């Protein structure tokens, strides 16, 4: 796969312009008259953006599919039926059957659980680790910051797919190690985004005022700095979830991720390619599932960025909360 794509260009953007408003911004900063809960405002703007709304709906469907996969499948996912190999889509087997006669529809449905689980856990790992690193580096500054950021530079020198493959090679391929590898690969992105945001608020007048009033570092970070980095982190999370799904699928596809017979979409595509002459359905449906899920996360990420961008917000409010298209 072409690597860093979904996270590469957009990932730096929030870091560049990190000064974002957030739900718990202190009174000192909040303009008068803006007392509506900000999350509701953000949601309204998000939903007024048609693309993001579609993304949200698709994601809800995907999450429900993953949660209720056991009820939604029509055949046991690992039950072979050699007599019925490579059966084309039919009323019985909506997405056809694979090389072992297994129901492709049921496996694609169960694949949603695998895919979303890997994405959620790996992005949580990088979110927590990256945010901690970024907060400490940005807030403390000095050598700690220098060392952390140089380490981040080193991490960025490795293309994400390659780094993940190398890590899986070291840990050994498995579902758990795939999640850890992806988590490690994404950590520097979050560290960079968070650090950028922290740097921009650290010296703000109100932070200095609170500090001079005797607030502890922990309190300042938790109550005042963290809320300010929330917006770029939320955007980055959505985009990273998209990329994590792509990365997991790619790793599984090349055999360096989830292992058989787990119904991972990437693995199903690897088998599909082996039997490409036997049926188009083998490759079309699992690939479509990856594509739709990734696109939904990307649309959400873009929508969130627009909704959380203060300039965008003013623009939309000035237009009477009209459509939230870009620019």
């Amino acid at each position, binding site marked *: 796969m072409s690597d860093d794509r979904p996270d590469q260009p957009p990932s730096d953007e929030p870091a560049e312009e990190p000064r974002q408003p957030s739900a718990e911004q202190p009174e000192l900063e909040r303009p008068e008259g803006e007392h509506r809960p900000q999350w509701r405002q953000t949601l309204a703007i998000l939903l007024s953006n048609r693309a993001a709304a579609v993304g949200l709906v698709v994601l809800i469907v995907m999450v429900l599919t993953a949660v209720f996969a056991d009820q939604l499948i029509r055949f046991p996912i690992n039950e072979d039926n050699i007599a019925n190999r490579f059966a084309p889509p039919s009323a019985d087997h909506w997405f056809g059957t694979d090389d072992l006669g297994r129901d492709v529809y049921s496996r694609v449905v169960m694949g949603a659980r695998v895919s979303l689980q890997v994405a959620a856990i790996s992005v949580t790992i990088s979110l927590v680790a990256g945010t901690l690193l970024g907060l400490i580096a940005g807030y403390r500054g000095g050598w700690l910051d220098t060392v952390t950021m140089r380490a981040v530079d080193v991490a960025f020198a490795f293309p994400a*797919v390659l780094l993940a493959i190398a890590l899986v*090679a070291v840990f050994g391929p498995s579902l758990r190690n795939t999640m850890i590898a992806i988590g490690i690969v994404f950590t520097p992105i979050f560290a960079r985004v968070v650090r950028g945001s922290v740097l921009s608020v650290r010296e703000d007048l109100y932070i200095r005022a609170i500090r001079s009033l005797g607030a502890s570092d922990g309190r300042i970070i938790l109550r005042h700095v963290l809320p300010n980095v929330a917006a770029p982190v939320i955007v980055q999370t959505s985009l990273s979830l998209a990329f994590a799904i792509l990365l997991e699928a790619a790793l599984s596809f090349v055999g360096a991720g989830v292992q058989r017979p787990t119904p991972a979409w990437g693995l199903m595509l690897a088998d599909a390619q082996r039997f490409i002459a036997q049926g188009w359905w083998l490759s079309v449906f699992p690939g479509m599932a990856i594509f739709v899920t990734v696109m939904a996360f990307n649309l959400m990420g873009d929508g969130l960025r627009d909704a959380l961008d203060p300039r965008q917000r003013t623009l939309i409010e000035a237009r009477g909360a009209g459509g939230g298209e870009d620019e």
Partner: protein
Amino acid sequence: MAGYVAKRVAQSLLALLGVSVVVFALIHLVPGDPVRTALGTRFDQELYEVLRARAGLDQPLVVQYFDWLFRALQGDLGVSFRTGQPVTEALMQRLPATALLAVSAVLVGLVIALPAGIISAVRQGKVSDYVANAFSQIGVSIPDFWYGILLILLFAQTLRWLPPFGYTSLLEDPVDGLQRLIMPALTTGVVTGAILTRFVRSSVLEAMNSEHVRFARAKGLPQRHVFRHHVLRNAWNPIVTITGLQLGTLLGGIVVVEVVFAWPGIGRLALTAVERRDYPVLQGAVLLIAAAFLIINLVVDLLYAKLDPRIRSS
């Protein structure tokens, strides 16, 4: 400018040093004995001793690192645990295929992104803008290996226009070589094009909204002249930069596409090394790609600074 060059070169060297530590650490992070793991059922005490000594694994860690680093600097990346072939030789054999694919992908990407991005910016908010946006959204969301499989399904399996996979050197057989290049280049190129389209669009939009372009328009210069000499000239620098960076990113990213098309490049070499637990080869491939990425970034940054004096002063 000299100060800027020195600073960027130093930064890159530092990053490269960090990269070397990580790559070196790879083999030591493997649980257990990497040589024993690599040999597996083919274990032979004599071979084991030779490989361990050749990989320097019987030395203290710090000695091992510097020994490895100095040898790497001289182009010696050790020998394969599996074949005994020098790693550098294996890498050099595969480099042309990867380089060809990466350059072709960037060309395909530019052929798509330049018109799409420019039209999209000029006709902002119109149908063509939405089409270009939709294309780039689809391009960044589609798993490229899936898209590659779909191409094989269509052009090789159904229409039988192109061979489904494999590589032939363009020097040996240009026609066959080109035929085999088309699908992998399209697979990586369309995705690259999708990313580049966004950047071309935003660069052109930014240039179009700049003061001097508005001034040129206010002076009454013809639209075409303003566009060619004021807008494009300014939009060009960021486009060159992003294209360069994409080339670097591609080097790592085509690993999976190489697998789809059985393309004998560095990525596939790395993956085979993973399967066979051939750590020196994996180390060599990762080091080469990361180093290439850093060098390309450095060159692009320096070029950008040369083209745009504002960068080096900031």
